[in-house]
């Protein structure tokens, strides 16, 4: 059943409508919500939403609970290849919980939060942006880690990144829902503007496993991988100091040693290498730049150090 979460008339003969699909079977009222499409350039969640919905359609008898799928919180952004909401300055994921008395976007965010609140678990699926590729991971802030890490481990991701809380992140959907008692996990995977089918399949297996653990799924599940939890690890950041074109020579997922050559920043005009990018620590490359043009400061890679590893 497709339901309207929010609908607001636009200037000329059209409405901005946020929709969800409810899939329900059995007497169990446990509710899992899958939300995605907050950023219009992040598309991995679109395929995942399709996979979950079509699989449930084909195996409805094994579902015992409620799945709500919200494929596009920012439909105009997806439709126009725009990360934010077109004609609105603020990132949608900095406007939650919204308010009924504010701007159009704030009103929409308020309706979304009202609709999602009360879910037993919510999975908020993001891709990376167009610049970086990420391994499937769950990101959790320190204050919610104790509650959420057990659920994150069920999701078949490679990595659970527990990060410090920041005031600016208090206006995210995940923070809003977690502070209202709806357990919300933020997934990041893949790269912007693309679909990585193997990652979608990996998370799909994790969602089924989570549903099984929640008592919502009576069918078969695949074994899930044990993620690396960031506690005890450090993350090394490799940023460009020069401007030019980044050409990597390491691959995504590679294990590197401190000082290893990761790639070059080149100048096409002078034909010079303007910077040799080196690993800042030992570890696994879990983020790698996809978009070649870089300025000083552009992130080239993130490296997850082994436990006890020290950055020089």
């Amino acid at each position: 059943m497709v339901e309207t979460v929010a609908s607001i008339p636009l200037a000329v003969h059209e409405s901005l409508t946020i929709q969800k699909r409810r899939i329900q079977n059995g007497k169990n009222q446990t509710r899992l919500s899958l939300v995605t499409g907050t950023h219009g350039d992040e598309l991995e969640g679109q395929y995942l939403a399709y996979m979950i919905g079509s699989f449930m359609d084909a195996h409805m008898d094994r579902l015992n609970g409620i799945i709500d799928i919200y494929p596009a919180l920012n439909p105009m952004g997806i439709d126009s290849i725009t990360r934010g909401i077109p004609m609105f300055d603020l990132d949608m994921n900095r406007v939650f919980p919204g308010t009924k008395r504010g701007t159009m976007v704030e009103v929409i965010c308020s309706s979304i939060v009202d609709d999602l609140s009360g879910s037993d678990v919510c999975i908020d699926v993001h891709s990376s942006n167009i610049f970086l590729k990420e391994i499937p991971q769950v990101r959790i802030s320190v204050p919610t880690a104790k509650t959420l890490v057990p659920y994150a481990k069920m999701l078949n991701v490679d990595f659970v990144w527990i990060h410090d809380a920041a005031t600016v992140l208090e206006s995210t959907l995940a923070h809003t829902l977690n502070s209202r008692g709806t357990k919300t996990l933020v997934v990041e995977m893949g790269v912007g503007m693309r679909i990585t089918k193997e990652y979608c399949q990996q998370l799909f297996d994790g969602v089924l496993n989570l549903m099984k653990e929640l008592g919502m799924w009576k069918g078969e599940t695949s074994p899930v991988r044990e993620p690396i939890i960031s506690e005890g690890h450090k993350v090394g950041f490799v940023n460009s100091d020069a401007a030019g074109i980044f050409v990597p020579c390491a691959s995504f997922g590679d294990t590197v040693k401190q000082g290893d050559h990761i790639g070059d920043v080149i100048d096409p005009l002078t034909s010079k290498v303007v910077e040799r990018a080196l690993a800042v620590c030992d570890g696994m490359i879990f983020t790698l730049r996809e978009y070649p043009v870089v300025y000083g400061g552009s992130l080239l890679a993130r490296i997850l150090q082994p436990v006890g590893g020290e950055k020089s």
Partner: protein
Amino acid sequence: MKKKILFSLKSPYREQLDVIGFRFGHGRKSLAIVGAMRGNEVQQMYVCSRMVQALKKLESEGKIADDAEILVVPCVNYYSMNIGKRFWAMDNTDINRMFPGYDLGETTQRIADGVFSKFQGYEYGIQLASFYQPGIFLPHVKMMDTGFTDPEIMKDFGLEFGIVRKPRPYDTTTLNYNWQIWETKAFSVYANATDEIDVKAADEAVNAILRFMDNRGIVTSKTPPGYITEIIDEDMTKQIQSEAAGLFFRVTEIGKTVEHGDVLGRIYDPLDGELVAEIRTPVSGTVYFAYNSPLINAKTVCFKVIK
């Protein structure tokens, strides 16, 4: 006056970005004035350029206090201005959401860090601000309530209203907020327009800043008499939403005193021209913000009224 490069950034394909600052006087770091951080903040840059002219004249006349240094930075982000973008062209990030910045971080974090290191240490900071919605403002001064800055100081600008805003989480990465955390008394001056020049509003903003500097003993300057500023809490202003969508026509002026029930705007169906909504004010007061785009969506904040 000394013209200096405050921060530079190399680009792969363009000339180096050089953020220019103009320093006047010497001694105690008294006031920093910052203009455009977004590519469409033309009015904000213009007001700062007018301040450079005014301060050059005051300096030549010996009217800057003996122990006072003033920094004016008309434009941080001219890279975006030159290509018609509001935010940083590469990744669409907003430099004014990156403060205090990070010298080892992403590009706009590095820009924020680079310029913030030069904006710090001043007793007062003034940012020429723009709003995230298309609209026009009654010139006013605003500050964030962090507990550091005394709102009464806003009276020295002599603008009609001084508004105190309770910071929201997304405000905590703005220049204004971080200035206060680093102990600069910070204010945002709104000079009506953004991507076009409103000379009258710019005159008012320049006079307000000069009046502030005169009242604070930074310069000696004669300006036209200002208002007795009314200090109000932003929560006490009334936001009025459009209940319909279509073509928007404003029928009131900024600064006008309106009575409960007065019509402020009308919305017409864009295809058949029928009147679909009249926007009436539910309170009496002064209109200080008006939406100014011809197309309007429903649930758009189209007027703000100071009760």
